[in-house]
């Protein structure tokens, strides 16, 4: 049932625009019920998972490739599924208010539901390629949603950028999956997990690891691929909340967590994840600090959080993995709350610039509460869930010495700046002197403040009563990632340990930095730094590619028919010739029983061919070509192919008719081209003729299979009811072939028509 919910969502999603058209008001109530019912389904499943009863369901999709839509639900999948459907519910409620008057509300719901279904598909798939398909579907729905305001060029560019980056990563990931399935001989993720020893010791382990990591890092916006995420903030706020902070960007983290049991434990895995994650968490935080736009501020802090998650998974100790599982949910809760309140601020005041927002607590009381709760959890203040997350994070389960210090310092820096972000987003807009002008006149509807308040309360409640959450959600997830039983113990106060000291120090540092932020000197400093280097490289590469394509196109497709002919012939001759001469050269007994009249015909054709080239008169040239053509027809007759001979004669006749039609339009018959190009053409013609002759001789000499001619001759009358074997072959035995050829003919006719009509029109407009 749980798994069918994915399909049901996929089926319902396209129907939503119709519902919105029929009854807009009702649809705003009904649509959020979909994620809610999915969420409740998962909640009812908690006990089963906790007792170690995973769900499994398989549908054969492409059996010949071993691709099945098999679904599997375990602790890790459930943690993600709860976040997806839970935050999804809040965001859908929020969207019903936020997008209330948007003309494309139906389309918006459609994309969002489609996204949610694909995201659930990712975390519930047990098949590598099923996962890949859902993965790409989230990229596509993200593209559609980032570019939702498609009239703006900025939106379109941001959407394309996100699609290309995640698309490149997705392709790399697919290559990794293919390798992985070849190593293990299966496409099932559970089955692969059981063979982790084989994978780790395989010679292809490094490429598999790098390819899959590339997929995860692009999706989860790790440095240097992080820049698409702040760009994606042009999307409507519900999209930023749902896709670009709570769920889609976590798909990469999910991938890392899912493949931890398969691939971790090697130095390469730990090294890459810790280093990339560490750099990402610090640079995300550092880049967030100077931002003045609420959503960009939150976006960079999301980058920082994703970096921290990657780093924790890279450390791989049970404690670090617990911290990651906890932080995943914490981040989803507080970040979605802050995003939604940022959207409300934007909606109500028309600005997202934090320097202009202050004192709105009386006008937006519920938003103030929601944002405040979220900010406190983000800052890691006890007893919010965020506090426990930070405790576990600093613990890491490792002794603080050597390079672990670097990890700790990175976490402290990132967390301190996150406190600044929390203060800027959660408190600054609401507190302080109230603005004099009455910008906000109407109340915020319940649908809009419900999300942030609910997210904030859940964050507080799970901190106050952490046991159920740990038992039912986090422990099952951690057990899957570490493939072992472990228990998480959380205490609000466990003595004045170094970890607690570090937490307090972080809070103090954050407060200090927040005060520093009031004197906005560092802003200009960061602006000078312009740490947008990766996006610069991306842009240059993309446009460079287009330029290279233009140059190549200009040279190969230069609009001159003769150079097309040169290129096509040369390519064909070189390839065929290479193939031909890499076999042993076959020297046929050329002249063994040639009859006199055949000799005469051959001489005649050669003379005519030479004459057609040398003649100074156009009609003579046509005549000589005609001689060659009719000569060929005679050859067919000599060798007993009347059908071919008739065709040849008719074609020659039509060519002459055609020629007589255009002869008046042709320029004077004289030598236009310079000698060197004539010699070049001559050489090309000689090579072409030679290669074709060799090819025919070769074809005569080779016999790979017993000839099918006998079959045709024997069965022509019996099964084809015809004595003309050629015709029976054309219309019956090989009819599909003929069909194709006739279609080609028709396309050619359309091509000639278009070509001539366009030139005529052009000429007329020129005159």
């Amino acid at each position: 049932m749980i798994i069918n919910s994915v399909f049901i969502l996929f089926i319902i999603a396209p129907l939503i625009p119709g519902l919105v058209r029929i009854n807009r008001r009702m649809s705003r109530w009904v649509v959020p019920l979909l994620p809610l019912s999915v969420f409740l389904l998962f909640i009812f499943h908690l006990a089963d998972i906790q007792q170690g009863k995973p769900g499994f369901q398989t549908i054969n999709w492409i059996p010949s490739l071993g691709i099945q839509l098999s679904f599997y639900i375990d602790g890790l999948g459930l943690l993600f599924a709860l976040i997806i459907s839970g935050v999804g519910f809040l965001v859908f409620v929020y969207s019903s208010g936020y997008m209330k008057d948007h003309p494309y509300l139906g389309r918006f719901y459609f994309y969002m539901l489609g996204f949610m279904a694909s995201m659930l598909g990712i975390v519930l798939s047990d098949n590598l390629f099923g996962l890949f398909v859902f993965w790409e579907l989230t990229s596509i729905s993200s593209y559609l949603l980032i570019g939702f305001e498609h009239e703006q060029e900025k939106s379109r560019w941001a959407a394309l950028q996100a699609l290309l980056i995640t698309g490149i990563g997705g392709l790399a990931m697919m290559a990794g999956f293919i390798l992985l399935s070849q190593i293990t001989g299966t496409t099932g993720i559970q089955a692969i997990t059981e063979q982790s020893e084989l994978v780790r010791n395989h010679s292809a382990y490094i490429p598999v690891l790098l390819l899959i990591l590339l997929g995860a890092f692009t999706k989860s916006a790790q440095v240097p691929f992080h820049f698409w995420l702040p760009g994606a903030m042009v999307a409507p706020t519900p999209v930023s909340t749902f896709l670009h902070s709570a769920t889609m960007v976590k798909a990469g983290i999910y991938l890392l967590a899912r493949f931890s049991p398969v691939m971790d434990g090697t130095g390469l895995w730990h090294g890459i994840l810790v280093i990339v994650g560490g750099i990402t968490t610090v640079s995300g935080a550092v880049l967030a600090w100077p931002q003045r736009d609420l959503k960009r501020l939150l976006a960079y802090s999301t980058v920082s959080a994703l970096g921290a998650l990657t780093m924790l998974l890279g450390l791989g100790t049970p404690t670090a993995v617990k911290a990651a599982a906890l932080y995943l949910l914490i981040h989803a809760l507080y970040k979605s709350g802050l995003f939604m309140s940022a959207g409300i601020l934007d909606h109500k005041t028309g600005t997202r610039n934090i320097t202009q927002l202050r004192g709105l607590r009386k006008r937006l009381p519920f938003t103030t509460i929601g944002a405040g709760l979220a900010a406190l959890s983000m800052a890691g203040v006890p007893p919010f869930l965020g506090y426990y997350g930070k405790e576990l994070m600093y613990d890491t389960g490792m002794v603080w010495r050597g390079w672990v210090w670097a990890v700790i310092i990175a976490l402290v820096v990132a967390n301190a700046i996150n406190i600044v972000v929390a203060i800027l987003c959660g408190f600054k807009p609401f507190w302080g002197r109230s603005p004099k002008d009455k910008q906000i006149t109407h109340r915020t509807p319940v649908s809009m403040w419900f999300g942030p308040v609910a997210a904030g309360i859940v964050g507080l409640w799970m901190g106050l009563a952490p046991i159920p959450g740990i038992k039912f959600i986090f422990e099952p997830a951690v057990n899957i990632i570490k493939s072992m039983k472990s228990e998480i113990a959380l205490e609000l106060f466990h003595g004045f340990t170094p970890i607690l000291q570090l937490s307090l120090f972080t809070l103090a540092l954050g407060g200090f930095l927040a005060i520093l932020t009031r004197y906005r000197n560092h802003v200009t400093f960061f602006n000078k730094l312009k740490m947008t280097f990766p996006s610069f490289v991306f842009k240059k590469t993309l446009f460079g590619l287009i330029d290279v394509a233009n140059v190549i196109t200009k040279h190969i497709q230069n609009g001159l028919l003769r150079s097309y002919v040169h290129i096509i012939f040369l390519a064909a001759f070189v390839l065929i010739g290479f193939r031909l001469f890499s076999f042993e050269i076959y020297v046929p007994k050329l002249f063994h029983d040639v009859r006199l009249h055949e000799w005469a015909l051959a001489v005649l054709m050669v003379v005519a061919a030479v004459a057609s080239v040398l003649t100074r008169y156009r009609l003579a040239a046509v005549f000589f070509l005609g001689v060659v053509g009719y000569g060929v027809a005679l050859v067919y007759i000599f060798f007993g192919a009347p059908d071919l001979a008739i065709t040849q004669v008719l074609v020659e006749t039509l060519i002459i008719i055609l020629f007589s039609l255009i002869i008046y339009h042709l320029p004077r018959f004289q030598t236009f081209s310079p000698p060197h190009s004539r010699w070049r053409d001559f050489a090309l013609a000689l090579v072409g003729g030679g290669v074709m002759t060799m090819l025919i001789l070769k074809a005569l000499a080779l016999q790979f299979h017993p000839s099918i001619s006998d079959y045709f001759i024997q069965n022509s009358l019996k099964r084809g009811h015809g004595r003309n074997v050629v015709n029976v072959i054309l219309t019956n035995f090989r009819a599909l072939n003929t069909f194709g050829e006739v279609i080609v003919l028709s396309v050619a006719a359309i091509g000639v028509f278009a070509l001539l009509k366009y030139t005529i029109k052009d000429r007329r407009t020129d005159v």
Partner: protein
Amino acid sequence: MKSTILHIASHHLMPLLLAVSLFYLFRGHNYPGGGFISGLIGTAGLVFYSLAHGIDDFFKLLRIDPLSLTGLGLLIILAAGLLPVLTGEPFMTGKWLSPSLPVLGKVHIGTPLLFDIGVYITVIGVNLKIILTLSEE
């Protein structure tokens, strides 16, 4: 370029050539001939007429765009291919009826003949389109 001889000759030759082309079309299954060859013969007849009378007169006679002829021919071929599908056989399987007719005796009529008619019409359409487009210029 209007020539009286050509004019008169084409009047008589075109129907003759078309008749010949049909003859070649229907005998094609047993003797040299068939859709492609007869299509070329038919084209020759029609083009001959258009050369003698001019394009406008020719279109007055033809009344249908050659491209539509092409499409019609392709549809006939497709129909010939799909007929056996209706009875559950693979696409393009040859299906035959062998009725005994009063004058002709026992004849075999089958989808390959329909197929060949389609080829015939397509070839005429294609060639006419190309030649007429060229000659319009």
